C-alpha cells in the first residue's frame, strides 16, 4: 500500500483518506457515499466494521457503530460488501475495527479472507504491537499493512518502536482523545508532526478532528494524508449521501 500512496503523492500536495462505518446508515448508503468519495478524488478509505464497544471512538462514530449493529450488520456482510467495493474502485481500502472482531473470527481466517478480497490494510486502535505478535506475523504473511498509530503522548523511542512494526503509513492522531471533536493545529502540533516525521519514513496520515479545507491546508507540506472521519458521517446524517461529493470536491 505504501507504494500505491507514494505514487499518488507524485501528483498531489496531500492525499485524502475518509472513514465510513459499514452498515450505517445502511450498506446501500455506504455504497453511494463511497462512490461519491472516490469520484471526487478520495485516495484511500477506511471501512469500519462496527463493534459494540468502540472505546476509542467519539460520539458520532460511536452512535454509527451502535446503529449499524442495531440494523443487523454482521462481519460477514462487511466482507461481502468490501469485496464488491474493492472490485469497483481502484483505490486502497482498509478495514478499521477493534481487535475482538478479528480475534473472534479467527485471526488467520480473517487475514486470509481480507487478502482474498484485496484489502490493503488494517487499523486496530486497541491492538498495540506488544499484544499483536501473531497479528503482525499474519499481516506480513498476507501482505496486509498493519497501520499503527502515533499520538502526541508517544515518546520518540515509542514512535521508533511503532514505526518498526507499522506498514503502509502511520496514522498520526492529531491530539489526545477520541474521534470527532475539533483539533488545534498550533505550535505544539507542529513540533509533534516534526517528531513523527523524524521517527519514520512511512507516509504520515493525520486524523482526528479534520473537518475543512483550512484544516487540510495547514497539513500540506507537513503530512502526506489527511483523514476525514466523523465529518462525513455527520454530513450524510444531515444532508444525505449526495452532499458528500461536493463536500470532498471543495476540500482541495
Amino acid at each position, binding site marked *: 500500500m505504501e507504494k500505491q500512496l507514494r505514487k499518488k503523492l507524485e501528483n498531489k500536495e496531500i492525499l485524502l483518506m475518509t472513514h465510513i462505518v459499514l452498515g450505517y446508515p445502511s450498506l446501500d448508503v455506504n455504497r453511494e457515499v463511497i462512490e461519491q468519495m472516490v469520484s471526487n478524488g478520495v485516495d484511500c478509505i477506511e471501512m469500519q466494521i462496527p463493534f459494540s464497544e468502540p472505546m476509542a471512538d467519539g460520539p458520532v462514530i460511536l452512535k454509527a457503530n*451502535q446503529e449499524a449493529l442495531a440494523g443487523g450488520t454482521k462481519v460477514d456482510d462487511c466482507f461481502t460488501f468490501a469485496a464488491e467495493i474493492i472490485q469497483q474502485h481502484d483505490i486502497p481500502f482498509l478495514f478499521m475495527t*477493534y481487535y475482538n472482531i478479528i480475534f473472534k473470527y479467527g485471526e488467520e481466517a480473517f487475514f486470509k479472507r481480507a487478502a482474498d478480497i484485496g484489502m490493503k490494510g488494517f487499523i486496530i486502535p486497541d491492538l498495540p504491537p506488544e499484544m499483536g505478535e501473531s497479528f503482525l506475523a499474519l499481516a506480513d504473511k498476507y501482505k496486509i499493512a498493519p497501520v499503527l498509530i502515533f499520538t502526541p503522548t508517544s515518546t520518540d523511542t515509542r514512535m521508533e518502536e511503532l514505526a518498526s512494526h507499522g506498514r503502509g503509513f502511520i496514522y498520526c492522531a492529531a491530539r489526545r482523545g477520541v474521534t470527532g471533536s475539533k483539533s488545534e493545529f498550533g505550535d505544539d502540533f507542529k513540533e509533534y508532526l516534526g517528531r513523527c516525521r523524524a521517527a519514520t519514513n512511512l507516509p504520515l496520515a493525520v486524523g482526528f478532528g479534520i473537518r475543512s479545507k483550512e484544516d487540510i491546508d495547514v497539513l500540506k507540506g507537513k503530512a502526506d494524508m489527511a483523514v476525514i472521519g466523523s465529518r462525513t458521517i455527520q454530513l450524510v446524517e444531515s444532508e444525505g449521501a449526495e452532499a458528500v461529493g461536493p463536500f470532498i470536491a471543495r476540500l482541495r
Partner: protein
Amino acid sequence: MDANGFFGSWGGAYIPEVLYQTFQDLKLEYARCRKDPAFWEEYIHLMSTYSCRPTPLTHAENLSNHFGGAQIYIKREDLNHTGAHKANNVMGQGLLVKRMGKKRVIAETGAGQHGMATATMAAKFGLDCTIYMGEEDVLRQRPNVFWMEKMGATVIPVKDGSRTLKDAINQAFRDWVTNVDDTHYVFGTACGPAPFPEMVSWFQSIIGIEAVDQIIQAHGKMPKKIYACVGGGSNAMGIFKRFLEEDVELVGVEAGGHGANSGAHAIRLASSDATPGVAQGYKTMFLQDEDGQMKHTHSVAAGLDYVGVSPILTDLWEKKLVRFESATDEEVMQALDLTMKKEGIIPALESAHAFAGAFREVGKLSVDDAIIINQSGRGDKDIFTIAHAFEDPSWEKFIIDRGKEYSKKHSG
C-alpha cells in the same frame, strides 16, 4: 502476571496507543509500591483509621443451625467505609495517585458502590472527580448518585450501548484518552488492561489476609470452602488470593439473572454461554455473539451485571483452582430474606449471590467444618431495588406520596 500482563492466556493490555506512556508510568509506580513495605504499611494505616479494617469475621450461628451443616462465617466487607469492599481498592489507588502527582480521577460505576468509594477517596485526597455511570444504573441507584454529587464528584450518565457498567467503562476510557496527562482512571474491579487486574487484586487481598488469621482464631483450622460473588471479580480475588496457598475450595458465584437458559443473566464462567474475547482492554471470557459483539446481560444486582470477568479468575477457572456457580435473582432474594431474618445482617444484592451459592451446599458439610462467605457490601443502599423487588406496599405508598408532594411543589 507475565511481562505483557497475562495470566495464562488471559489478560494483557489492549489499550489505545495514546495511553501507552501512562500505562508505563503506572506499571512502574505500581512495581515500586509492591517493593516498598512502607507503602503497604501506609495503606494498612489508612484503612484502619479511615475505614474499619480489619473488618470482622462474624459467626452466623443461626444460619449454621438452620442448615445443620458447616459453621458459616461471614467476612464483613459491608462494614467498610462507604459500605463495600470497593473502598479497599480505591484507597489503595488513591495513595498511588498521590505518589504519581495526578490531580484528577475518573471511574466507572455499576452498582454505584465503586463510584461512591471513588468520590469519597477524591474528597479525602482533594482530587477532582468524574464518575461515569450507565443511565440504567443511575436510575437503579439514585441515592448513590446523590451522595457522589454531594461529595463534589460529577456524575455523568452514560446513554450508549446497554447503558450499564460496560458502557460506563468505555466512556471512562474515552475520558482518559482525552485527559491522560493529569488524570488517573480508578478501575473498579480486577478487570481491564494490565496492571489493573493484578493491582486491584493486590489491594483487595487484604480481605483474605485478615480472614486467614480470623478463621484460625475462631474455628481453629482452615475452612472447607469460601464463597464470593463475582462481578468483575475483585471481592472474590480479594478473599481467594491468600487461600490459594491452602487446601480450601474456592467458589465464585455469578449472577444467574432469570436463569442459565434464559439468555438474561451474567454467567461467564459457570455456563457455556461465554467465549474468549478481547474488549475493554483485556482478554477474558465474554458474553458475546458469534461476531464478537457483546451481549446484553441481566442481574438484579447492578454490580454483577457485566459481560467480562477478571482474567485472573478465568485463568484460575481454566486451571480448576476456582469453581464457578451461579444464583438466580429469585434465589438471591430468598437468601437475602433469610439472612436478614436469621442474623440481622443485610447483604448487598451482589453479596447475596455468595450467600445463595453457599446455602445450597452448606448442609452437606459436617458441623465441625467451616465455610466463609464474603459479604462484599451492605444492602441498605439497595433499598430502591430491594423494596421494589419485594413489592412492599407501604414502601410503594410512601414513594407515591412523596412523589405527589414534589409534583405539587413544582407545579405550584
